[in-house]
């Protein structure tokens, strides 16, 4: 079980595609910084076909005016706990 973080905006499809292709069942994907824009209605559907659990970092959602409705989100302490409970971490940027 692996924790992936992604920090790039939907305008960077290449990073998203490499991240998406690396996800296994049971992994989690935490959207941070500009990657919270993947949760805009226009982009969100692309997340549904990923095998991983999708989460977002709450302060980054709030700062960017992206709605948290229907989103699993964590605060900074929750980010740390995700890193603890997954066996390894990969940061995509």
């Amino acid at each position, binding site marked *: 079980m692996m924790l992936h973080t992604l920090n790039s*905006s939907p*305008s960077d499809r290449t990073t998203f595609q490499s991240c998406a292709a690396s996800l296994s069942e049971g992994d989690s994907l935490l959207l941070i910084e500009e990657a919270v*824009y993947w949760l805009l209605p*226009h*982009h969100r559907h692309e997340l549904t076909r990923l095998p991983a659990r999708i989460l977002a970092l709450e302060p980054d959602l709030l*700062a*960017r*005016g992206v709605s948290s409705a229907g989103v699993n989100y964590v605060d900074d302490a929750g980010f740390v706990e995700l890193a603890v409970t997954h066996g390894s971490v990969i940061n995509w940027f």
Partner: protein
Amino acid sequence: MNAPEVLIICRRAPYASSAARDAIDVALSCALFALPVTLLLLDDAVLQLLPDQQSGGIGQKNPNAMLGVLPMYDIDRLYTSTQSLALHGLEDVRLDPAPIVLDQAEIRALLARHPRVIML
């Protein structure tokens, strides 16, 4: 020498880098020099216009607030493109401040009118 019209193009999301704030600073400086300034937000820069950005949790200033005061400095031409809105599906979303939306032909005409372009 005539004051040339200056076009400032920003293509970056807020906070990602200092680009959003820097574009505003350049615009304000040009206004001080009585240069006619137009600000064009393309691609991720349209995300600067999403309402209700609460940046306290990341300890950063919200550039959205600064965009709203630009008209006080006679910078009242804030543009974006249909292509940029479509990139993030923001065609029917309230943006603040509301930009003037140009299609591709109008963007090309805007560029052709401006002999000085600063990209940020």
